[in-house]
């Protein structure tokens, strides 16, 4: 039998008109930030003498020392999904912010980048999620050490509040300080870890 004879279009799909894409809103500690002091510089754009600037990894590697010496200027780096955080490691003590890009929401490389930043390199500055940051990623991002989000959501603060309390228990240790269920069970049994 021919494939097309068997195949039928499902009539069960929800039909809703597509809405215009939502612009990202910067969330800091769950609140929409009034302004963002950080400017993301293109590679051919000269750095201002002061102010907070975010540069690409390539530019950090080439000009990092000079950029970090700007008086009164904070420095940040944008880690693209394919970038290796190891390369940025020597500069981390001089950085106040690492922006981790999610080129599309389903590309999960940024989760590993954030965990390495926090757990391996003990980065204490801000780790900001940028790009296609959707509310359903927040729960995972919070557990991986992100603390700022340029979130695309209709009501970003409400979405953030939902994500924070989505799961009151977790199973595995991660960057956040949450005690996973197996550890809590052991503590309860008096065995400790």
């Amino acid at each position, binding site marked *: *039998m*021919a*494939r*097309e004879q*068997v*195949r*039928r279009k*499902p009539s*069960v*799909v*929800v039909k*809703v*008109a*597509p*809405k215009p894409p939502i612009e990202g809103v910067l969330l800091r500690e769950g609140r929409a930030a009034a302004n963002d002091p950080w400017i993301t510089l293109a590679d051919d754009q000269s750095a201002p003498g002061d102010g907070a600037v975010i540069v690409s990894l390539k530019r950090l590697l080439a000009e990092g020392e000079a950029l970090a010496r700007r008086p009164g200027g904070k420095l940040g780096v944008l880690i693209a*999904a394919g970038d290796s955080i190891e390369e940025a490691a020597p500069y981390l003590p001089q950085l106040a912010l690492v922006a981790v890009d999610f080129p599309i*929401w*389903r*590309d*999960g*490389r940024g*989760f*590993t980048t954030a*965990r390495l930043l926090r*757990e*391996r390199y003990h980065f204490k500055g801000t780790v900001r999620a940028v790009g296609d940051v*959707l509310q*359903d*990623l927040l*729960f*995972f991002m919070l*557990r*991986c050490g992100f603390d700022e989000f340029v979130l695309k959501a*209709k009501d970003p603060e409400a979405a953030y509040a*939902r994500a924070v309390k*989505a*799961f*009151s*228990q*977790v*199973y*595995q*240790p*991660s*960057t956040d300080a949450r005690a996973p*269920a*197996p550890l*809590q*069970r*052991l503590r309860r*049994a008096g*065995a400790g*870890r």
Partner: protein
Amino acid sequence: MYRYDEFDETIVRERVAQFRDQVDRRIRGEMTEDQFKQLRLMNGLYLQLHAYMLRIAVPYGTLNARQLEQLAMIARKYDRGYGHFTTRQNIQFNWVKLIDAPDILSDLADVEMHAIQTSGNCIRNTTSDQFAGAAADEVEDPRVWCEIIRQWSTFHPEFSFLPRKFKIAVVASEEDRTAMRTHDIGLRLRKNAAGEIVFDVYVGGGQGRTPFIAPLIKQDLSSAHLLSYLEACLRVYNRYGRRDNSFKARIKILVSSLGPEEYGRQVEAEWEEMREGVLKLPDAEIAAIRAYFTPPAFAAKRESEAYARARIADAAFDRWARTNVRAHKQPGYASATISLKPIGGVPGDASAGQMEAVAAIARRYAFDDVRVSHEQNLVLPHVAQDDLYAVYQALDEAGLATPNAGLISDIIACPGLDYCDLANARAIPVAQEISKRFANLDAQEKIGDLEIKISGCINACGHHHVGHIGILGVDKHGEEFYQILLGGRADEKAKLGKIYGKGMPGDAVPGAIERVVAKYLELRKDQGERFIEAFERIGPQPFEEALYGA
């Protein structure tokens, strides 16, 4: 079996609430179908050819009677009165409505079940041996480790948006009854010389359009380090697995392009950084999970005389006992396979009434323990031999006593073009026709162990690559067409079959299989030489000729 405590209960309930919210947002139009797709998939909800399909996790294939009864209820209330058991030891319902899905998940949560991570690019349900806890050849019950993996992998913060899906299987015996080496990670549990539990770790197996048998990446991994090593394996994959082409995104492609040695080296380097960290398993944690899998309270028994007498008295029972009953580690007990492959039936389907019948039998005779096998059958792992005849009669009454476990009509088939949005050809009717062609039970027994596996497309959900005889449905100029593979095997000697010849239309398939089988019967050394052994000894030529013979 594992029982939820308040931690598991809380997580599963909160998941139901979260999904209800996601469905609401989708219905209100706050998400695109593409954005919703990944979320619903992470709750096992697929959009198929005709309807939504909900895939429910059966962790390592273990169910109790109450869960089975709840599945029966769901089949009646939300579906068309039946469910389909899958090659991943799960169950799926093929006719659910989007609007009902949150209620179904809530009903599942009532019996400690869920659909978490039954789809999506995350770590899926960990599979295992359907005879776990009963098999005489196991080192220990592998489900202890499956449960530890289940908890670690549930909503993993780093690995919920992998390049592609990720499947782990755990075996604890020399004999592999899980097709372990066709998984992204296969774990073989062993005891080392000091008597400690260790793992051999195979990474990068898979079927689909580019099949691989997983190479051994790490030997003798100490059990305390299981999770840190898995995390290292996944981290290397999450960073370096391909994301530009979904057909090349599985870990098998990364492992084969780096080479197993280089992949293993990268994992080792990552693991060195974290092996002594927070993921190191304390003995007390392992012991706490192990306690859930202590064997049931078996009575001290000898080989049953009643069983022997019933076999003599009832030839049909004797036949079922020969094919569907398996030796147990405990004297006087046995494991029984409940075939979901009636002659001419749909492989893996069970009606609500059948699920209830199995639940009642399990409660009365089988320590409330039912398993799903990757061959799409059910198993009662622990039955006293004294009770086997009663179990058989009850199964027979429910139409569940087909004596064909492991025989030619015990066919694995994917849902195919009857249901699946990806399929190129139907698989179920081909399985049904082959099954009818070999309906004669004496002939089936004479043929012996022969695994036929049918997929309706190159994604290979029907495991055609590792069937002794594999059948692959393709779309040839808009018509269904079937290619035949020979020589694959899914066991501890795992091997990929090869395609022979140019393929054939569906109605020619049963005849071709019949000729290959006749050739085998003609050429085998004796009745003890199985089809696959004869094929490996003789080589493909006579079988290939038979396939396309006059």
